[in-house]
């Protein structure tokens, strides 16, 4: 009884440490003015860097990152909702192959894939542009949306749609009044997955977007290679916020049965 309690407490402490120790150092660094070896704590704390960052590029990076994420999410959903519905409901030939194709960009090391894509995009004049970054994000994000939405549509019993169809509703009407409303929780989930993916995407953004397109992860990378650890820490903290908020929402909506459907695709 007591040993179990002790074990549980030890586990809690360990987990807390693993999660919050790196975070606390981020927080600490973000308020540091001067911190040099061998001092265990910063010698001087200040809001100097927060002020500097918020007045500077961070805001611009945040803005363009959000805009890209919104466009990527909208475009991905417009493409994948009909596609996922087709894959879930109709005897599409080579279904498994189609689903695997979307996984392909994730199956190989990211760097060579994106470097090749970048050279390709240079040829069609899309590199270092906003649309190029949107495209490269969609390549990575499609798999999340297609797989989740296919699983969601498949979890809706077909008889629910047949009932509407049978009562005189057209296929489109049936989709809009029955399938889509029932898929809403899954739709919200895949929206959030895609949005977060786009917001956090780094490799593709850096390679394709440089030097003109600046998102938060790229901004963080640039500042940290410039040894401005304070600025990088602040960027990291800011970048974490939308993720945290959205993940809480996601957790509410992503029903376990959708996840279990993945196995049956």
């Amino acid at each position, binding site marked *: 009884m007591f040993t179990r309690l002790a074990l549980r407490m030890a586990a809690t402490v360990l987990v807390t440490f693993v999660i919050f120790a790196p975070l606390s150092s981020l927080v600490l660094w973000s308020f540091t003015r001067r911190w040099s070896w061998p001092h265990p704590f910063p010698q001087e704390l200040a809001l100097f860097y927060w002020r500097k960052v918020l007045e500077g590029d961070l805001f611009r990076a945040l803005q363009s990152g959000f805009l890209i994420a919104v466009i990527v999410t909208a475009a991905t959903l417009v493409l994948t909702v009909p596609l996922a519905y087709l894959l879930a409901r109709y005897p599409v030939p080579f279904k498994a192959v189609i689903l695997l194709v979307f996984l392909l960009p994730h199956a190989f090391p990211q760097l060579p894939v994106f470097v090749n894509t970048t050279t390709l995009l240079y040829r069609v004049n899309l590199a270092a542009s906003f649309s190029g970054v949107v495209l490269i994000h969609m390549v990575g994000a499609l798999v999340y949306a297609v797989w989740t939405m296919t699983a969601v549509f498949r979890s809706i*019993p077909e*008889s*629910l749609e*047949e*009932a*509407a*169809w*049978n*009562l*005189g*509703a*057209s296929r489109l*009407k049936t989709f809009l*009044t*029955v399938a889509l*409303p*029932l898929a809403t929780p899954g739709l919200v989930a895949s929206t959030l997955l895609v949005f977060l993916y786009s917001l956090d995407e780094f490799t593709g953004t850096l390679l394709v977007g440089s030097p003109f397109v600046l998102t938060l992860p790229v901004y963080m990378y640039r500042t940290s290679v410039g040894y401005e650890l304070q600025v990088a820490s602040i960027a990291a903290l800011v970048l974490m916020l939308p993720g945290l908020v959205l993940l809480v929402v996601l957790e509410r909506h992503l029903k376990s049965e959708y996840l279990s459907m993945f196995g049956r695709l």
Partner: protein
Amino acid sequence: MEVRVEGLVKRYGRVTALDGVSLGFASGGLTAILGPSGCGKTTLLRSLAGFVAVDGGRILFGPEEVTALPPQARGTAMVFQHYALWPHMTVFDNVAYGLRLRKLPDADVRRRVERVLDLVEIGRITGVMQRRPAELSGGQQQRVALARALVVEPRVLLLDEPLSNLDAKVRQRLRAEVRRLQKAVGITAIYVTHDQEEALAIADTVVLMNAGRVVQSGSPQEIYSRPESAFTAEFLGVSNQLAGIAEAGGVRIGAQRLPYAGAVRGRATLIFRATDASLATDEEEAAPGHTLLRGVLEERLFLGSVYRHYVRVEGETIMVDGTEPVEGGPVTVRVPVAKLQVYAA
């Protein structure tokens, strides 16, 4: 609306689900399509609704051929096995769905929904209408599903094992309800079931199917008392089967010979119901119109309304039901000649 199908064929790969089915469904009548799972009864129903595109044959609603029409243009309404109520809508919205598609004014929709919910005896209508289907019991959900189908005044009502998800008591009550509603509305109804008792109880006409073909159709009484094949006899009720050899004037079963005047010759199957047979402990002369079989009583079970006796006859075990218990040992099984069916094996 009279419904006819002519030579319907449907194949799934190498499996033939419908193998040239021709049937007429009387206007205003309830036809039960009965058969074991995989016999094609559900495929037949779904092809009537338009969910299944047939490979051959014609479907006619009255004079109109509907074979090529999509489901939404057929004017049928289906009641599904798992209710298929929309969980994201209230009971009212579920029932109103078909009416709203027809662009009826709101007041009309409301009036008709209330009337049909009243017809299916859902209970306190105002309370139920604003609930979600998941908050209702299975029986109530199926009543809502019935209301949703009936409210659009369909040409044909299709029921796909509508009661098989309910427990025995509710099933019995709803069975009578479905029959009452169908008669009250006077609609042509086609009812698919694998439960022979349900089919006999509810239908004007029973169609028995097996392996994609119609085996026999007729009134419940006809099907029950005059089965035309071993399959029909077997499928309708607790039956005994004995293998024998039919000859002129008699059937040999092992060492025993029973009088027989029918036309079957050679290897044959004898079938009679457990309820039609009776037991006697001593050898007795065959009463007029009865056939006697000698056997040994092995086991007796009390089933509540009857005692079921298991009797070994020439190496096979048969069942005989009786209101009085009989003790084990050698017995004589009496079967009325009229109830003994002989089919070529």
